[in-house]
């Protein structure tokens, strides 16, 4: 095992409890195929070696720009997209080698909420049937019991049992996302992966859904992996934040630390680029980086951010910085104070 693939524990946060999910050297490559024989000519390295843990009861957020691999990570963890390499341990069990029967059982404990609630709900099914389906599919309840549970959960997410006989198109965006959340709650999961759950919603509705997610977490002791690009929502909901760039985590730490004292230049750039809804701050000092995110099929050598980094030096082009193992880890040769 080379140094790079050694699993790095991310800090001592909540060390007293066992992690719910442990992600070790997670990789997800998508092959690029060309020609009539579909020869593989390269790989898009969507996720390239992630190490982090999710502790019970916390909300950890993955942030980054589009194409940085945050959604792929979420899907790989719940095994919707099996990872190319690396391990995902859910309560100590390796998701890759687990028996099919046991995998089904574990699947009831992890659920996912998608970005677009319209395309993730079957338009031909009534809400009541949609919500009862997970229970029936896992043979956890009879139809009657399922029905009762549907009423209960609908109430919890702020809908009523009268909504049961309606179809998804009769709902507004915010209500549909509530249905998506209700469906995730049906099996009493431990972990919910929230993949951009509020990005498609209007501002006033976003606040409703964020509040709902926070309330549910308290009530059911849920653990969230929250994936988003809107930093406002992330700051509001998370305990810890992992900043991703081109398939790697560049910084991970407590929310407050990340926002008050960002150590990686990319984190600082992200924070300063975010438009602040206060016109008195419009002339604040800001770092605007040049250029676009490089292609994940051909990421830059050395530090992946060096092509856009305002502080890049010679070593950044040569040697890839590794995440240091502290409470507030950063992968940078010249971390900021």
């Amino acid at each position, binding site marked *: 095992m080379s140094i790079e693939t050694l699993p790095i524990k991310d800090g001592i946060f909540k060390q007293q409890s066992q992690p719910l999910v442990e992600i070790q050297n997670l990789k997800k490559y998508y092959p690029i195929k060309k020609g009539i024989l579909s020869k593989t000519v390269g790989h898009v390295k969507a996720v390239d070696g992630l190490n982090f843990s999710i502790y019970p009861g916390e909300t950890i957020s993955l942030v980054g720009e589009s194409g940085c691999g945050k959604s792929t990570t979420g899907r790989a963890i719940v095994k919707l997209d099996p990872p190319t390499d690396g391990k995902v341990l859910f309560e100590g069990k390796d998701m890759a080698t687990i028996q099919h029967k046991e995998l089904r059982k574990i699947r009831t404990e992890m659920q996912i909420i998608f970005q677009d609630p319209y395309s993730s709900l079957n338009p031909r099914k009534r809400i009541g049937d949609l919500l009862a389906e997970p229970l029936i599919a896992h043979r956890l309840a009879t139809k009657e019991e399922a029905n009762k549970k549907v009423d209960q959960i609908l109430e919890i997410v702020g809908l009523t049992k009268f909504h049961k006989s309606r179809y998804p198109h009769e709902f507004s965006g915010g209500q549909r996302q509530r249905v998506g959340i209700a469906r995730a709650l049906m099996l009493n999961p431990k972990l919910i992966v929230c993949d951009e759950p509020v990005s498609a919603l209007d501002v006033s509705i976003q606040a409703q859904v964020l509040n709902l997610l926070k309330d549910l977490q308290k009530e059911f002791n849920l653990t969230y992996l929250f994936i988003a690009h809107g930093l406002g929502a992330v700051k509001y909901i998370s305990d810890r934040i992992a900043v991703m760039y081109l398939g790697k985590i560049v910084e991970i730490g407590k929310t407050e630390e990340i926002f008050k004292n960002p150590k990686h230049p990319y984190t600082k750039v992200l924070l300063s680029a*975010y438009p602040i809804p206060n016109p008195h701050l419009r002339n604040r000092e800001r770092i605007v980086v040049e250029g676009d995110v490089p292609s994940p099929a051909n990421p830059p050598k050395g530090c992946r951010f060096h092509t856009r980094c305002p502080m890049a030096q010679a070593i950044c082009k040569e040697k890839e910085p590794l995440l240091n193992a502290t409470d507030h880890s950063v992968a940078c040769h010249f971390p900021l104070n």
Partner: protein
Amino acid sequence: MGENILEVDKLQTAFRTDKGEVVSVEEVSFQLQPGETIGIVGESGCGKSVTSLSIMRLLGKHGYIKNGSINLNGNDLTKLTEAEMRKVRGNEISMIFQEPMTSLNPVFTIGNQMVELIRLHMGLNAKKAKSYAVEMLKKVGIPRAEVIIDEYPHALSGGMRQRVMIAMALSCKPKLLIADEPTTALDVTIQAQILELMKSLKNESETAIMMITHDLGVIAEMADKVIVMYAGQVVEEADVFTLFDEPKHPYTKGLIDSIPHLEYDAQEKLYSIPGSVPTLQQMPKGCRFHTRCPYVTEKCIAEKPPHISIDNKRNHKVRCWLYEEKQQESMSNEEREVTV
């Protein structure tokens, strides 16, 4: 203060549907001066995009302007023929759309599309038009413009495509630029680049900008004055500082309170506006916001509030019954002063 370049007065836009006429923009009025940026903010379906399409007269075959006038430099755009309107579009008003991929033609090169527009509107020959296009691309910060100009849109990233759109929109030196959610589809670092670019271009020329967005952050960065729209109506109008410092309408207050802030410490609970935006077919009577408003009274349910000025000096207007009494008080105060 100079002359107004654009005056929109009591604009009302409707669409013909199978279920009868639907009025999507009820009453929108605003003025814009050269070099000024107005932000139009609201949630989806509030009519902000239809307002901009009305000004461009791009409403399609089912939409039409029912009432009101749109004066651009003294010309009423609602009265122009289609042929005359074509001369206005591109020359005097340009527009940038949200999704730069769908607004560029995928089967022509960037250069092809730019040269077509420049030749048509400016009457340059092909060679001059091409060198002008390269110049414009350089101006919006596209590296290797001479090479990029022969690329197809798919070869460019989202941010680059939006730069091309801006270059196209600005190449005829329009007096008014309408930007309809120009950065919504872009990443934050790219958004910052585009907003910086728009700011510097605005400082260079006297172009007035109409910035349509749902993001209050973008409004706070860019706009000089703001109108807030709800369900087809303007509910509040003020300069950007007044609007964020002393929002008056309950909807504006709700919007500002419901965004999570980066600059504050951890927030326990976000304010959220209950319910959702009513559909056009089921518009509440009286004040359109009364179904979601925490300060609702009998009067709000029964009667439509007028759009009244509560601070003449700062041109702060609100459509809400809560401020009617205060306004009358200040009016009578003013009258008293006059009589004294």
